[in-house]
């Protein structure tokens, strides 16, 4: 354990530390960030009102919309002279989230990631091939600094150029591969196409993050790469990768609670939910200098567990993110989450998580109909048409039962659905689907 003083801290001591840090941070943003001054005043809150940790609920939420309204740097709590680096989210359809860092922030982030990598079982003897994208995206650079801080070797391959990735893994004796889960699947497939057996290389672990990962996807990555898979969670608003990470026991992702104060709330009412209950993750940063966040609503659905872990850490764990509050589609007036569809597909034995939801949009968020394209793999394929049709019917009925609406299913050949080298796309407009019809 890299930092037992914090990683094995008692709840009581942790809460004392969190309260002290929260009080300081609240005072700081109230004095320095006009947006927070305004938001606190409109609720009749002063920093001095935060006397105990539960007073957190008196503070207003911050949302993605508030980030957008204050684009690019309206929430900054320090002068530009103190900034040493700026990252940004991709913001493909919207204004991106800008993430500035002070020198202190880079230090903290590197240390959080080094601690996280150690939590995952990575040591200074490892060779870490960093196939997270380098550049504006926080993933590449973030991990780069974390791996260096840990004292392991970092190979900054960035994402893409997959054949070269595989050649380097063989030639340099890579022991850990870091990348998005969808890219890990691609690497496994390309290695197979190249006739390379990754089980014969020194690779021993894959660290996957930056996009949601299902249990089935984890199994497929394990199968494709022949190694265990550790998941990591992060977001640009909070820092980047490293907000939480699994230990080798795979029983949730440990949160560095000395740096992040987390809550899970009901997405509709904003009420705090007890441990173990699924809801929206809300994060307050306790140590960020440049761009502190107060009760930031992540839109990610998860649950918390603060029981001590088998690995010896007392830091709380969050469950796998099962969906996003804003992925919601309105189909014929009914709310549908892509994660619901994914869960049904995973339950029908053998269906790979390669699917695409095609929507016929009538307005911005409403659609008249959805069709689900599912890739047929060897385990669900049959030489009998009747068996395939039965499986299709089973899928259709299971989806109808869960979603409450009828859906259409189309079985497609493997690799029909393009896998991006970055984030995997699960929902697409029919108008964008020229190649599939």
């Amino acid at each position: 354990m890299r930092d037992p003083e914090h990683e094995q801290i008692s709840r009581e001591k942790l809460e004392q530390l969190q309260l002290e840090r929260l009080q300081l941070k609240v005072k700081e943003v109230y004095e320095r960030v006009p947006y927070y001054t305004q938001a606190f005043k409109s609720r009749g809150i002063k920093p001095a009102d935060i006397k105990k940790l539960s007073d957190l609920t008196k503070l207003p939420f911050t949302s993605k919309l508030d980030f957008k309204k204050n684009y690019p740097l309206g929430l900054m709590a320090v002068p530009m002279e103190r900034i040493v680096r700026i990252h940004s989210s991709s913001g493909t359809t919207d204004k991106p989230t800008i993430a500035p860092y002070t020198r202190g922030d880079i230090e903290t982030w590197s240390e959080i990631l080094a601690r996280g990598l150690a939590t995952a079982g990575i040591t200074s003897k490892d060779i870490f091939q960093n196939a997270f994208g380098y550049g504006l995206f926080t993933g590449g650079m973030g991990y780069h600094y974390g791996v260096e801080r840990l004292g392991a070797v970092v190979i900054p391959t960035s994402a893409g150029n997959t054949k070269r990735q595989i050649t380097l893994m063989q030639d340099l004796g890579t022991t850990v591969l870091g990348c998005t889960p969808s890219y890990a699947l691609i690497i496994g497939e390309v290695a197979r196409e190249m006739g390379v057996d990754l089980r014969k290389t020194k690779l021993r672990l894959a660290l996957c993050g930056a996009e949601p990962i299902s249990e089935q996807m984890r199994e497929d990555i394990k199968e494709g790469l022949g190694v265990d898979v550790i998941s990591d969670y992060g977001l640009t608003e909070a820092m980047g990768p490293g907000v939480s990470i699994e230990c080798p026991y795979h029983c949730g992702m440990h949160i560095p609670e000395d740096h992040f104060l987390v809550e899970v709330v009901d997405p509709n009412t904003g009420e705090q939910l007890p441990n173990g209950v699924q809801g929206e993750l809300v994060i307050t940063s306790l140590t960020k200098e440049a761009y502190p966040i107060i009760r930031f609503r992540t839109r990610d659905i998860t649950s918390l567990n603060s029981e001590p872990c088998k690995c010896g850490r007392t830091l709380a764990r969050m469950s796998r993110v099962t969906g996003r509050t804003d992925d919601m589609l309105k189909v014929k007036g009914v709310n549908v989450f892509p994660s619901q569809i994914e869960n049904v597909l995973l339950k029908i034995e053998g269906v790979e998580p390669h699917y695409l939801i095609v929507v016929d949009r009538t307005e911005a968020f409403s659609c008249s109909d959805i069709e689900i394209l599912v890739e047929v793999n060897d385990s669900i394929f049959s030489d009998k048409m009747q068996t395939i049709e039965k499986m299709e019917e089973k899928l259709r009925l299971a989806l109808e039962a869960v979603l409450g609406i009828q859906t259409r299913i189309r079985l497609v050949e493997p690799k029909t659905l393009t896998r991006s080298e970055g984030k995997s796309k699960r929902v697409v407009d029919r108008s964008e689907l020229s190649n599939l019809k």
Partner: protein
Amino acid sequence: MGIKQISVFVENKTGRLAAVLEVLEKKQINIRAFDVSDSANIGIVRLILTDAELGLHELHQAGFTARIDPVAIVELPDVPGGLLRAVVKPLADAGINVDYLYAYTEPSTNKPIAVIKTEDIARAEKVLKQR
């Protein structure tokens, strides 16, 4: 007599069957018998090949979803009612349901051969042999 059949999943659209056949041609794998079952959107291509294992391997390499299954084959008497008396009736009498069947001409003997798929191939073969 038992034999292995390869089935390939294809989408019911232009060029997909050709794509399957091109893989086999490229590897010089000969097709002895051939059958297609299709619905509105998908098709199953069933093949008896000169080398089933190699065919399966190559189709997988080319990215197709494919499988290998045992099927029964039986030589048909080249007379009216041949299929009925040699295959369909004996299996029906034994209570064996036929999933599908198709036929081809064996080049070495120039005799028609029926390819039969049932739930229990071993049992079907036993019934067909007893005849």
